[in-house]
């Protein structure tokens, strides 16, 4: 098998993170668990947000995990793809809006 930086099997080992710092690790997982509970937003909505953010932060583990989570919840593939586009639009917009800074700097430096 070819070696890559990301190994899909590592996702299963995520909980092992606590082994090297139990206190902080547990705090993180407690927080994480709480965040995804039903709240003002439904767990289903949170799953779609997580899927969009996974793409924005480009985390392959999270993309795998939240694609599976969406399937388990009966989320349709059209909904998943729209969520990804929301992420992409924000990311694209965020890149582009910095163009204003570039333009400002350009103007400032120019005679």
């Amino acid at each position, binding site marked *: 098998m070819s070696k890559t930086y990301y190994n899909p099997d590592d996702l*299963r080992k995520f909980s092992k993170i606590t082994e090297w710092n139990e206190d902080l690790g547990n705090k993180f997982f407690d927080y994480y668990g709480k965040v995804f509970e039903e709240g003002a937003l439904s767990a289903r909505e949170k799953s779609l947000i997580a899927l969009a953010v996974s793409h924005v932060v480009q985390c392959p583990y999270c993309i795998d995990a939240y694609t*599976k989570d969406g*399937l*388990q*919840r*009966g989320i*349709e593939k059209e909904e998943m793809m729209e969520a990804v586009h929301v992420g992409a639009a924000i990311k694209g917009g965020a890149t582009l809006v910095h163009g204003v800074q570039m333009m400002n700097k350009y103007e400032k430096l120019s005679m």
Partner: protein
Amino acid sequence: MPLLKSLAARKDDLSKPANQLKFLSNGIFREEELPLFKDKIAESGNYPLKPKKLEILQLNLGYMCNQVCSHCHVDAGPDRKEIMTKETMQQCLEVIKTTGAHTLDLTGGAPEMNPNFRWFVEEASKAGIKDFIVRSNLTIILANKKYHDLPEFFRKHKVHVVSSLPFYKKEKTDKQRGSGVFDKSIKALQMLNAVGYAQEDSDLKLDLVYNPAGAFLPTNQQALEQDFKTALKEDFNIDFDNLFAITNLPISRFLEFLIASENYEDYMYALVEAYNPAAVENVMCTNTISISWDGWLYDCDFNQMLELKVDSKVQHISDYNEDLLNNREIRISQHCYGCTAGAGSSCQGSVA
């Protein structure tokens, strides 16, 4: 994609239960990456697994089916010829009359395809069983003219119909069960509603069975039931009573899919990770006896498909003895993780 033939007809290695069991005990389990089911349940003092009071007699009337679903744990299909004879049915009727079980559960294949199905239902319904279930794949009702009156027949005998519908959208259902299955299933559900199933003030019960269309576990049963109810009502004006969410067990054609799609290890990890000790108490083998088309006794339908007969002096319907059977130990292997993941899974849905 739906397959055209059973593993048996393709003479696939996995069609032999011994090969499935061997596969399930090797690899990640032999290398001790994952604990054996036996050791896992021993942690909570549940090994050996023992039966409680018998509540459900499940009869498999044959492996013949008009569908060849890709996840089928029975490896059923039109090419399977195993079918329960009238003689074996007679033996079952004798047992039904004396059993302490309150539920009779007819399954297959498509149980309706057994030529003696109607005769048997008529006879068995006279035995005064409290809950008389027929597991119908729905499309059989439309498969041939001779089955069109099944809803009426079910109504007449007050049969509790439990129907598989993997999803409330066409794409996923057809992908798992075959092209056109969704539309026919919808039509069949409407026919059942029309004769009074799942209608207000009606005691005709219609439940649906959901199982994931792929290598993932079912989510919360109640949430799924709500989604199904809303979608089926809005889109097709269909009513049903309960939804049972069932986990796909890693045997037979679902095991074939897991191996071919390279999902087997991940799936087993997911099952073991979701292991719920509370579900062990109520796995369905603790209150069920499963009887095969040829009259052999098993702890459950899955053990039947793996040819793991009950571990008892009594192994055949012809010398059935409930007291003796109650003293047996239940035979288990790694496929049992499918019954104890999350909220647990049984023919009646979640158990924990």
